[in-house]
């Protein structure tokens, strides 16, 4: 990655060490949500924060190569569709229980990609304005 973009070396090193931990913590919160405090929403927010952390440390360009608005939208809609599908299966009576971890995962996908896409849209708009 380009050394010029983003913050200083110290921040980047620490970020490399911690980002994975934050991500895994988010998944942990997501998976234990059906029986104790936590759940898809909180876990999704933490996962999104880990990605936002990456942007803050390494700069916009490093992330925009991997992720853009279109991909964010695909992730959002697939998360929402997965959640809708699971709940519709519940309404149709195909499943009655045991779906909570899966729907938590779907919510986490929706929330994390949604928050992250919001962040991307805002910094995309702000950077476009700076160029003009």
């Amino acid at each position: 990655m380009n050394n010029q973009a983003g913050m200083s070396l110290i921040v980047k090193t620490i970020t490399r060490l911690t980002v994975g931990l934050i991500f895994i913590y988010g998944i942990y919160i997501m998976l234990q949500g059906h029986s104790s405090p936590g759940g898809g929403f909180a876990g999704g927010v933490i996962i999104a924060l880990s990605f936002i952390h990456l942007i803050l440390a390494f700069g916009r360009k490093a992330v925009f190569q991997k992720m853009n608005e279109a991909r964010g939208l695909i992730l959002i809609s697939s998360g929402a569709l997965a959640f809708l599908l699971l709940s519709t299966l519940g309404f149709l009576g195909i499943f009655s229980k045991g779906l909570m971890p899966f729907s938590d995962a779907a919510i986490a996908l929706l929330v994390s990609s949604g928050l992250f896409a919001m962040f991307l849209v805002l910094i995309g708009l702000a950077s476009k304005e700076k160029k003009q």
Partner: protein
Amino acid sequence: MSLYFMCLILFSVGLYSVVRKRNIIKIIIGIGIIEYSVNLFIILIGYRLQGRAPILARDQTIENMVDPLTQAMALTTIVIGLSLIFIAVTLAIRIYEKYGTFDITKIRRLRG
């Protein structure tokens, strides 16, 4: 009672900011403050002195717990507030692109 009063003060600060300020960003901040004051009010409704967190686990009796429904309501309104603020900020950025200012007294092309 004093807590409710503080809530009212927070509400009034936000309302003042929405009504009196001319900067778009300050108006958005005002909307945010009002949202939080209402969230605080909702949480306070469900609060009781010496109350416990409303978690039902093994070997625990549910006595003297705070109302979980208001907390769920507050969580929902926080999410709605987040999306509202997001739309507002996006609009503010686009308005700044078009008009070159955040001053609402200068953003007046619509009349009648």
